[in-house]
């Protein structure tokens, strides 16, 4: 199966891909792998039972990137996949995931991606996952990603999850276990509009001594969209954890923000900050006094906020 221009539009939106990248790559379209190649350090294969991906990154691999985007273009497509990523000891890699749906039909398109990520001792991972939907039909574009990540001793991971446009319904579940001196940073950027609904449920367990976790969420809810953000941090030992959720609410939107801190050790240091509010009038006036129109000012503020 070849990839057409429309496919590349969607691939570009979720993974900045204008053509097929060199190195390890797997592009999944409408439920099957249409492009797959491994590199000498990164092996991509199919799981013998459920057929999902197994991405194995050799210990010590440096500065390599794996692309594993998913696109749905068939109307009414329902796709569910289990992927496993193993980042070998002391490796330093970037995984670009992401899912784009093009749906012009009146039936729903849905992708449930279940990812298990293991970051081995001393490894460093950057993981980016962007969600995007397009198409004028009444059929919903639904994405339900689920991620379980284990961070071993001295390893670190940065997860960046972005959903800015076109996804009607999403339930994101993220669970993380952090080992000794392990470190995790989750960055979420979300914009919902129309009647979209988005829920994110994050549970992080810091199990190893001196582990640390940070969750930074910025979201904008427009029109009559709804957002629910739940982030729970559990510190089982001496550790550091911080949750920050900051939301701009507009029009008739609804936002629920529920950060939770659970300390099970007197040396666990945990903090959270949560804020919901509309764009401050002073900010709009300031930008308008520099010559922007009100619409341009709103756009500038939102773009900056979600950057």
């Amino acid at each position, binding site marked *: 199966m070849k990839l057409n221009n429309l496919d590349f539009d969607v691939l570009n939106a979720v993974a900045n891909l204008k053509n097929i990248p060199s190195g390890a790559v797997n592009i999944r379209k409408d439920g099957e792998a249409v492009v797959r190649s491994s590199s000498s350090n990164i092996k991509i294969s199919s799981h013998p039972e459920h057929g999902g991906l197994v991405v194995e990154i050799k210990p010590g691999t440096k500065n390599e990137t794996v692309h594993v985007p998913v696109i749905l273009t068939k109307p009414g497509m329902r796709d569910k996949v289990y992927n496993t990523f193993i980042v070998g000891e002391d490796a330093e890699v970037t995984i670009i995931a992401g899912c784009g749906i093009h749906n012009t039909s009146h039936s729903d398109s849905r992708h449930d991606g279940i990812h298990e990520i293991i970051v081995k001792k001393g490894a460093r991972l950057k993981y980016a996952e962007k969600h995007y939907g397009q198409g004028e039909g009444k059929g919903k574009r639904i994405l339900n990603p689920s991620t379980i990540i284990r961070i071993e001793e001295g390893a670190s991971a940065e997860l960046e999850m972005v959903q800015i446009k076109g996804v009607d319904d999403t339930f994101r579940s993220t669970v993380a276990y952090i080992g000794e001196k392990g470190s995790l940073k989750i960055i979420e950027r979300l914009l919902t509009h129309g009647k979209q609904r988005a829920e994110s449920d994050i549970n992080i367990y810091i199990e190893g001594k001196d582990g640390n976790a940070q969750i930074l969420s910025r979201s904008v809810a427009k029109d009559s969209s709804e957002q629910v953000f739940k982030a729970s941090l559990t510190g089982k030992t001496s550790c550091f954890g911080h949750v920050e959720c900051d939301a701009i609410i507009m029009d008739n939107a609804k936002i629920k923000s529920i950060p939770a801190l659970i300390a099970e050790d007197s040396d666990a240091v945990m903090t959270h900050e949560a804020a919901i509010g509309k764009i401050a009038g002073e900010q709009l*006036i*300031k930008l*308008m*006094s520099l010559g*922007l129109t009100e619409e341009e000012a709103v756009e*500038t*503020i939102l*773009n900056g*906020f979600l950057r």
Partner: protein
Amino acid sequence: MLEIKNITMAVDDHGENKEILKGINIKFEPGKLYGITGPNGGGKTSLAKVIMGIYKPTEGHIYFDGEDITDLSITERARRGIAYAFQQPPRFKGLTVQDLLKIAKPDIDNNLLRKTLRDVGLCPEDYLERDLDASLSGGEIKRIEIAQVLVRNAKLSIFDEPEAGVDLWTIQKLIHIIMSNYKNNDKAIAIIITHNENVLPVCDEIILIKDGVVAAEGRPDEIWPLICDDIECKKRQECRGEMIYEIK
């Protein structure tokens, strides 16, 4: 030229109609630096905001270069060449110093960006990429505010208490920059709202606003005697603290 004609502004104060500005008439001419002073709550900032279009007057008209701009929006006034440095500039999450300067002056090049920041005493290396959020101190955000008005090189620039919140060390430098930009610029009008005893005497004209009216207007030598008692430090003799910086 900016002409304020019979500007009145009233606000609703808990159901009561309260007049903040009561029939203000002033002519601001190009090539002059104006100092507006007067007690707190007298209407200085309200007048500045009426000029920028942030507040709507209940009566009166504003003419800018012959055009009646009374009904123009903030954006339209900005595009016609009016700039306003806020007394308390807002902060932005996710916008950098550089972003804001580029909005203020879209065709700004890298050299001018850096020069503008250096002029207000901020090192470009440290500040260009800084977020305009709560991590900046009051003094820093104020200098950035002044920088983005200076860089616009507007026909009319209003500085609302540029010295407020800025450390003593920096005030003189900021004032000097404002002065050197406007003192001999025959095309631009600058208005500084200030209580600063070093700034007022070097303005071309001082306007004293009190209780919503122009209480006095004239050259510094005419106005200074009327206000110096309120502004100058009365304890200087006893204090014996020397003035370190003084504009001569």
